[in-house]
């Protein structure tokens, strides 16, 4: 894998992974090992989080199409091996939460995948990507669930910063769905929302 070509993206835009029952099988132990190593990398690489979690769903019965997607991540990693998070100093302190979800992104069970990240000033401190456990019936519902889990994380960070002796009164939570924002305004009046 050291002499492989480099790709600039971790997955193709038309990447569409499914169970692929007819496809040729690959060695499961090897596939699981590969996913395990990639999962470990998530600790510092939010850019591959979504695609690694996507590939990880097929560990019980991996096919060649899944392995191909997983290998693309490795090719991408090769080109971006020196990347990491940076924590600059000096700039006014503020915390922002971003949330988004793809409505019915998983074609197998029509569940949506949530994605959230939190920036303390310009440094990324926390990120999260997870397939929802329930089926959202509308985009608003999917976005609202995402905003909820983003909010929970914000509260945790806020509390942690209070322990550090830092009080932040207003934390904007950014969400790209107007209906979900209007929905939010009723339940979380203390948080300031903005349409993205």
């Amino acid at each position, binding site marked *: *894998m*050291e002499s492989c070509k480099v790709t600039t993206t971790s997955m193709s835009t038309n990447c569409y992974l499914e169970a692929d029952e007819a496809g040729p099988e*690959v060695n499961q132990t*090897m596939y699981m*090992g*590969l996913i395990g*190593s*990639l999962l*470990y*990398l998530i*600790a*510092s*690489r939010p850019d591959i989080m979504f695609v690694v979690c996507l590939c990880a769903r097929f560990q019980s019965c991996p096919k*060649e199409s899944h*392995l*191909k997607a997983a*290998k693309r991540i*490795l090719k991408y*990693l*090769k080109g971006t*091996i*020196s*990347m*990491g*998070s*940076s*924590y*600059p*100093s*000096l700039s006014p*302190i503020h915390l922002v939460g971003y949330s988004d979800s793809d409505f019915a992104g998983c074609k197998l069970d029509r569940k949506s995948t949530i994605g959230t990240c939190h920036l*303390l*000033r310009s*440094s*990324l*401190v*926390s990120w999260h990507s997870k397939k929802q456990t329930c089926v959202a019936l509308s985009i608003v519902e999917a976005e609202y669930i995402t905003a909820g889990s983003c909010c929970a*994380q914000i509260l*945790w*960070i806020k*509390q*942690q*910063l*209070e*322990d*550090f*002796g*830092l009080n932040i009164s207003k934390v904007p939570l950014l969400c790209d769905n107007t209906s979900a924002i209007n929905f939010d305004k009723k339940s979380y009046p203390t948080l300031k929302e903005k349409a993205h």
Partner: protein
Amino acid sequence: MNVIGTKWVFRNKSNDSSIITRNKTRLVAKGYNQAKGIDYDETFAPVARLEAVRLLLAFACMSGFKLFKMDVKSAFLNGVVNEEIYVSQSLGFEDHKHPEYVYKLKKALYGLKQAPHQWYERLSLFLLSHEYERGKVDKTLFIKKVRTDIILVQIYVDDIVFGSSNVKLCEDFVKAMQGEFEMSMMGQLSFFLGLQVKLFKEGSLYANQSIAKTSLRSSRWNHVK
């Protein structure tokens, strides 16, 4: 009475260029023979979330703290066991006069079910007695405020990252820890939990480059395109 067996575990430690630098041995207890309610009770032990570590990094850069790291040598051996536990004599060190004798444990051994719990208990009690406060949501964060200065101590089992607005507080902390436990690898934070932390003039940057390289180097994934 339940006598727990012991076993020697051997491990080679290698440095960055994978040359073996140290041979380690460790006596472990066969914790799987322990009976719940007799040999152990609580086994939970909190560990820090990675987000907490990142938040500490970001906060330290922002307030201009220097972060330091140290770890406790054979941490679990410091835990005190409350239960009456007996272990068999260790292989190669049997007493020929009394081969039927067993040892009663005063402190924890690696492999015991309660070892991580007791270690956390010991460390947190020690810090609390030194006027450190436990974090409200993060139970692995310890804070001490002295007038306007603050020291933050984040614990990840036996790895400790700490930083303070006043160097004096850091020195006091190191001194206190060294007085109580056997410590090693002290210094400015450069590598923690697989994250390489590089410090720049205007802030710090981290990447777990070394692990990414190993992951690519693994020849197991060579055959499929």
